[in-house]
């Protein structure tokens, strides 16, 4: 474990958590969306630290590129400058949201800390997480899942057009 890795971990953790809090609590959806970009890029940094180079690249291209452009486009299309007044829900949500979130945190903390430690963190080869190794697995073991997910994307595309179009 290098010093550089620890420093990177602390920096990325700060960036991830603070930007996630901005996404949840900021009134303006545009600011929330821009904070979400920071969050996604910081998570791509974690992928790099965990030897998932291909996934880090995909995270930046697909999430920070495609999905965020889509979200920003919709915000600007509908010109939602302020969701204030919408921000807080009714009484039930105000009480229940922190309670449910705390319950969720407790369950996850129990799973993380009480679970068995698992094998020791090892680096077996330099091939781990490269486009080559991921692609080989994707087109052999996970071939049918890969083809099915392309079908799902077509369905989602048709559905999005159908829902958003004024009249067919």
């Amino acid at each position: 474990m290098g010093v550089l890795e620890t420093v990177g971990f602390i920096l990325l953790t700060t960036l991830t958590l603070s930007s996630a809090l901005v996404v949840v609590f900021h009134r303006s959806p545009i600011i929330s969306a821009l904070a979400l970009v920071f969050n996604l890029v910081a998570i791509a940094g974690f992928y790099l630290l965990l030897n998932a180079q291909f996934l880090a690249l995909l995270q930046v291209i697909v999430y920070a590129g495609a999905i965020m452009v889509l979200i920003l486009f919709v915000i600007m299309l509908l010109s939602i400058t302020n969701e204030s007044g919408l921000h807080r829900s009714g009484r039930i949500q105000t009480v229940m949201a922190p309670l449910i979130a705390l319950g969720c945190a407790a369950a996850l903390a129990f799973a993380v800390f009480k679970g068995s430690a698992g094998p020791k963190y090892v680096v077996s080869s330099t091939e781990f997480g490269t486009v080559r190794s991921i692609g080989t697995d994707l087109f052999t073991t996970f071939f049918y899942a890969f083809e099915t997910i392309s079908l799902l994307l077509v369905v989602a595309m048709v559905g999005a057009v159908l829902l958003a179009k004024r009249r067919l």
Partner: protein
Amino acid sequence: MEPQWVLVLSAVLFTIGAFGVLWNRGAITILMCVEIMLNAGNLAFIAFARQFDSAEGQIYAFFVMTLAAAEAAVGLAIVIALFRLRESTDVDELNLMKW
């Protein structure tokens, strides 16, 4: 950096996202909080892939990413249709099917 600390971060991130989904009323903010939750799950998948030294976790994360793209496209189309109908993105106004 032990993968366990990444798992702790992933749990915290998931909790923040879940809280945001429950707390906010704007449909677009809720969709962004769902993206945060999906990313927390992905982070856990990749931490486990690293810890168990197997590429399968990374492939699951890849599929989750594809699903997130589909979800964002359909979800935003629903938001547009909703805005056209109600002139707002408040999800509390969608109570037609409430008993």
